[in-house]
Structure formats: structure tokens, C-alpha cells
């Protein structure tokens, strides 16, 4: 039992390294992805909040001043970068629809763990590299940030990332039956854009929708970690995120396992 767990860990560490090694083969693409994209997103969000405050002729919205929204925009872009998965979900779908999954399912490993470890490895290295942007910006512009809360906020976001991967696993399982489903990814990510709190802080939503949406596990992607760092969310509310993600993981993993099994039994070993 001990040995098989050690084998499992070594194997998954190797998958995480694979993500880093293969992404660094294309250095420029990687740095645009890790640095330039979050910088652009931050710029757009900051401009948006400047415009909102100027247009509304007010110093506070929902009890928070402009600096709080600028800080939310800055950290929101950083956490959203961790909490979304386009690239790996597209790859998972492509593996199934093109049949290149053949080379994975005949090996002693699971498709789920293979992509989860790659996603975590990729996000881990990207988080370290791209974290310089919000830390330096928050320090230079003196934006409201509780730095001591950052590590725990990142832990919640990475925990939520497992849920994101499980959703990707469910979406990709559908590719066994429908082949072309990249539109599902786009539609789902647009929905998550709102539900995570990437587009705007979820506490701006009127009740009772606010309570429901914040209770959903998706708020653990952006709103709860960023709200925790920028002092919009209490410690107790923040910790509730771990509970809702755990419940989401149990339910979605069950659904994913059923869909995967059904998909594999209908798989025709596409190509070759």
C-alpha cells in the first residue's frame, strides 16, 4: 500500500514536471501567457473601475472606496489566472476527439490524475512567476492588501482548481459521444467568469442571489480569496469556501466517474 502510494506520488510529480518542461519548450508563448495576459486583464479591470467611480460621482460603492476595487481588480486578475483552465481542457477534449488518448489509456495511470497533475504543476510555476505583478503593484500604489492572508488564499484557490479540473474532466467525457465540444468550454468559462467573481465582486449582487452565489463552490476561485486579501470577506466566510469546494468535489467526481466509464465503453479507438 505504502509502495503503491509512493509510486503514485512519483508518477504525478513527473506529470507536473512534464507540464513545466513542455511549456518551457516554447518560452515566449509561456511568458506571454504567464505575464502579459494577466497584465492586460489587470489594466482593463483597473480602467473599468476608474470609469465606474468617475461616472457614478461617488467615493464608495457598497461601502468600499475606489482603492478597494482597484485592489480587487489587481488580485482578481491574478487569482482568475490560477482558477481558470482553458488550455488543459481544450487538450483533454482534443485527446479524446482525435484519438491521441489511445497512448494514455493503455498505460498504468488515469487520465484524470495525468491532467490534474499537469494542471497543478503548470499553475504552480505560473503562480510563482506572475505573483510579482500584483505584489509590486499593490506595494507601489499602496492598495489595500493583507499580505499575511495571501498564502491561505492561494491554498483555497488551488483546492478550487481541483474542482475546475473535475469540471474539465466531465466536459471532456462528453467528447466521447459528441466529438466537437469546445463550445461547451467557452460557454462554461463565461458562466464561471461571473460565478467566480472575476468580472466584479460577488457582494455587489443583490440578495437573495448574492447569498446563493457566494455559497456555491465557484466563489472560492476568485471572490473568496481576493475578498479575504482585500478585507471584504471575514475569516469564517472564507473558510466556508473549503467546505463548499469539498462538497462540490464529491458530487462532481461521482458524476465524472459515471460519465467517463460510459464514455470509455462507447469509445471506438478513433484513428489508426
Amino acid at each position, binding site marked *: 500500500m505504502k509502495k503503491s502510494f509512493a*509510486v503514485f506520488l*512519483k*508518477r504525478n*510529480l*513527473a*506529470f507536473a514536471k*512534464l507540464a513545466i*518542461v*513542455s511549456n518551457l*519548450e*516554447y518560452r515566449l508563448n509561456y511568458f506571454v501567457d504567464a505575464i502579459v495576459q494577466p497584465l492586460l486583464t489587470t489594466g482593463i479591470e483597473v480602467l473599468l473601475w476608474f470609469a465606474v467611480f468617475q461616472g457614478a460621482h461617488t467615493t464608495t460603492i457598497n461601502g468600499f472606496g475606489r482603492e478597494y476595487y482597484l485592489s480587487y481588480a489587481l488580485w482578481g486578475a491574478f487569482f482568475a489566472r490560477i482558477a481558470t483552465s482553458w488550455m488543459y481542457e481544450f487538450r483533454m477534449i482534443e485527446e479524446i476527439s482525435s*484519438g*491521441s488518448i*489511445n*497512448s494514455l*489509456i*493503455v*498505460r*498504468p*495511470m488515469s487520465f484524470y490524475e495525468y491532467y490534474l497533475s499537469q494542471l497543478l504543476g503548470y499553475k504552480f510555476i505560473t503562480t510563482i512567476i506572475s505573483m510579482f505583478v500584483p505584489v509590486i503593484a499593490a506595494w507601489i500604489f499602496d492598495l489595500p492588501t493583507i499580505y499575511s492572508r495571501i498564502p491561505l488564499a492561494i491554498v483555497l484557490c488551488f483546492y478550487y482548481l481541483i474542482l475546475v479540473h473535475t469540471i474539465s474532466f466531465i466536459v471532456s467525457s462528453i467528447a466521447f459521444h459528441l466529438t466537437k465540444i469546445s463550445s461547451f468550454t467557452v460557454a462554461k468559462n463565461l458562466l464561471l467568469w461571473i460565478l467566480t467573481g472575476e468580472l466584479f465582486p460577488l457582494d455587489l449582487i443583490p440578495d437573495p442571489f448574492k447569498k446563493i452565489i457566494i455559497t456555491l463552490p465557484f466563489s472560492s476561485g476568485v471572490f473568496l480569496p481576493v475578498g479575504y486579501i482585500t478585507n471584504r470577506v471575514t475569516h469564517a466566510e472564507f473558510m466556508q469556501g473549503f467546505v463548499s469546494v469539498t462538497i462540490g468535489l464529491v458530487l462532481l467526481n461521482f458524476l465524472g466517474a459515471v460519465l467517463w466509464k460510459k464514455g*470509455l*465503453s*462507447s*469509445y*471506438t*479507438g478513433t*484513428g*489508426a
Partner: protein
Amino acid sequence: MRSHHHGQYLAVDSICFIKILGNSGQSPIFYKTMSIVIETKDLSRVFKTYQKPEGLKNSLRGILKREYTSKIALDKTNLKIESGKIIGLVGANGAGKTTLLKMLSGLVTPSSGDALVLGYRPWERNYEFLRQISILLGQKNQLWWDISPVDSYALLARIYDLDITATRKRVQDLAEMLQCSHVLTTQLRRLSLGERMKMEIIGALLHEPRILFLDEPTIGLDIVAQENIRNFLANYVKEKEPTVILTSHYMDDIATLADRLLLISKGNIVYQGTVDEFVTNSNAELAQDEKVDFEEVIRRFLETESRIR
């Protein structure tokens, strides 16, 4: 064929092959010599495909209602394959060779029937089973496209829980035999087809599989490269004695490597026996003054196949 599914006991024609398992997932405790390692019983697979008639009108109609046809890719196939044999699987395009290979390797689940490979149902993908097999699909990459072969092999060593130092040594040995040591550190996507196939072969053999499924391993290669790979495989199987199921459209591959021949036609096995017997039988049916070699017999068989289709 008898089988108790969850693991205490499995028996396949108990005279030939007996295997006892402990708890689910453990390795077999013993095998008899000259065992049957692959056995199928009425193994069948039906594929359902969407039919799209020509034109925009039919595309619009297809949004609401689609027509599907069923095609029997493999029909009630019964096989027994002994360990250590090299089986040449020959048939026309679409005859069911690759479908059979994919079912025996666990890629595809059968529509009906049963199969045991090394005592496991392949499509259950038990890790112990997967550790003992390898499949090489000549038209598909098995290694990682964006990294160098040595990085791929290091990853495979982790997946199959191999000793890293021993794996490196094995890679060097296999690369020397295939004369391709100079490209081990080049990104896979930058290699020529021949070099890539050599890398794929090393990857497939790294964990010393007991059963090796080779689907068109020399496809698209020039004559010299085909011969190199053929010679390499011949030496390898002589030394390691894995059971090999080989499909190829190049009859030299089959004639050089195969102990036994499986001829497949429209999803049915139409001949099982040795290559020599097959040629002798075929010659016996010809006029007295006519003698043909293996390649010619197969060519005639495939021609007849395509006419019947």
C-alpha cells in the same frame, strides 16, 4: 472459458492456463508453461456511424434527426494464442485487424463476447495488466510530441515504476541497436518519420512487455528503414520472447517475423495456422505447374477481398 471476476480465481481452459490471484489487483501467483496468454470467446464489436446525405437541406434535417448505420467490425471471434508466439494479423483495410488489436489491448470495449489477456479482461484496464502489455500504433504517436525522447522515457519510467538508472541504460542499449542514439535529445516533433518510429519502438519496449501489439510498425518507411526495424524486432523477440501480435501491409514483415498467421476478412478469422502451411495449402489448390510465394498468396487473397466488398 470460466472466470470469477473480482479476483480470487481465474481459469481459462484449465489444461492450458491457470492463474490464481490474491486480492484484486495483485500479480498472478503462477502460470503453467506453454500457456495460452490470449483467449477470446465470441468477441464482437459493432460500430454505429452517422450517415449524412449530401446537401444543406440534409444538414439542417440532421439537427433534429440523424440516421445511423451499424457495421460489424469484428464478428464472434474465437482465438487462442500461446505465449512467446509472433502472430501476423493480415487482412484488407477495414477487415477488423485494428479493432481486434484495440480490444485485446483494452482500448476498445467489445459489444459482446469475452476475452482474457494474461488472465485479465483488457477493457477493465487493470494496472497490473497494463504494466505487462504495450501497443504501438504506427499511425499515432505514443510519445510526447513537444519534448525530447529522453524526457519521454524518464516519464515512462515513472509511469511503469522502473528504476531510472536501469532505464537510462536500457534506452542507450536499444538506441544503439536501432542506431539512433544521436536523436535521443531532439524534440520528437523535429524528427523524421523513421527516427520517430525508432523512438516509439524504444518507448514501447522500455518496460519489457510480455505482450506486444504492433499495428503497422513500418508504415510509411523506406525499404532500408523497414528492414532495420524488422531486423531489430526479430532480434528482440528472439532474446526476450514476448508474445507479439503484428499487423502490417508489408508482407515481408509478416513473412520474416510471424510464427503464425491469422487471416481476417470482414470481421471474421478465416485462417489460423503457420505461414508455411498457408502457402502449402494455397499451392495445393493451384494448377500443378503454378507455384506462388507467401506475398503472392496474400496479394491474391486481398484482391479477392476487395472484389467481394
